């Protein structure tokens, strides 16, 4: 009789249903190229900071200007997707308090707010004007 294989791993089916901050950012980054006929491109650059946390930078690239603008930067623990800590961004309140987003819903709302902000729109308009001038 064959020996029964023992599986000590936890149930991992739930993990796949969690939307990561990185995937949400990548979705939005990909849309920027579509919306601007690739005059501007979105990109998310991720680095591991001394093995303790993942840092994601949301970038707008203007290839024809050879220019990159960092819209914001967030981080989270390597072992946990949330909370997401906002490290830099267009909102002046970031100067005075640490913003943390405790769930996917909070992160999505914040991301929508930042990408739709006047600051971001000013940068997009200015870059497009320069490209098309």
């Amino acid at each position, binding site marked *: 009789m064959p020996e029964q294989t023992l599986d000590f791993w936890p149930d991992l089916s739930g993990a796949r249903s969690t939307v990561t901050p990185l995937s949400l950012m990548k979705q939005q980054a990909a849309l920027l190229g579509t919306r601007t006929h690739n005059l501007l491109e979105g990109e998310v*650059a991720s*680095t591991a*900071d*001394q093995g303790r946390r993942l*840092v994601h*930078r949301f970038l707008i690239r203007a290839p024809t*200007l*050879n*220019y*990159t*603008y*960092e*819209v914001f*930067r967030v981080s989270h623990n390597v072992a946990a997707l949330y909370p997401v800590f906002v*490290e*830099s*961004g*267009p909102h002046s309140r970031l*100067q*005075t*308090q*640490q913003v943390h987003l405790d769930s996917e819903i909070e992160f999505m709302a914040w991301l929508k707010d930042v990408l739709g902000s006047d600051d971001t729109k*000013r*940068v997009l308009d*200015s*870059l497009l004007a320069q490209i098309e001038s």
Partner: protein
Amino acid sequence: MLTFLFWNMNRKPLSEAIAAIANAELVDILMLAECPIEPADLLRTLNREEPAYHFAPGQNEKIPMFARFPGRYLPAVYESDRISIRRLMLPPIDDVTLVVVHFPSKFFWDDASQMMECTVLANTITEVEKKLGHRRTILVGDLNMNPFEEGVVGAAGLHAVATRAIAGRNARAVQGRSYPFFYNPMWGHFGDASARPAGTYYYERAEHVNYFWNNFDQVLVRPELLDRFRSDQLRILDRAGDLSLSLDDGRPDRDKASDHFPLLFTLDL
């Protein structure tokens, strides 16, 4: 030779003081932080005598820059809300990468956050240097950290050291990873050994550890530019023409001027 000026203006309307320094020192590249003056208004003051200065636009409006040449020779290549990385491209000289920084205040960020910010900045600089294909890089700005703090000194941070000899080794390996050096001449600008200001920023509070004088405003130089950088021409200014920027005891006069002194330096390009 190009002359650079960086000044955190503490949101004071110091157009006349800036113009006085710019004209007296023949500043070629002017970099400002916490500047409350609209670029057009400052240009009018700078160019009152002759139309020497141009605005060098970027998306970072918090670090306005002006130059004695058209802004197209100082385009931005990477920016965020706290940094503006410019490519100084004045033919026929070799391009220089100019990184201008204004980091969050210690009032709002703890030491660990400041250290991590330096790590991210160091990575960004390395990315830009790879893209541009050289390390002729100079960093200037208000780091809101002293030269001896971990984020400035640490290998994974800015890795800025106190002597040319050490920086001249180009890079150092830690745990198998190589980290390029910066030379940080601000180490030589602490204290009262000379008649010059004892730092760029003064802060006094009722706690056990108090440095009083700080060099938050710094210029860091990559080894590739060391032979172009003269330490004796790096100055912390306490005057702007007829206007004294300091009180009688030498501290920055934050009422009449800014709580930071301006930083002036040159590059032989």
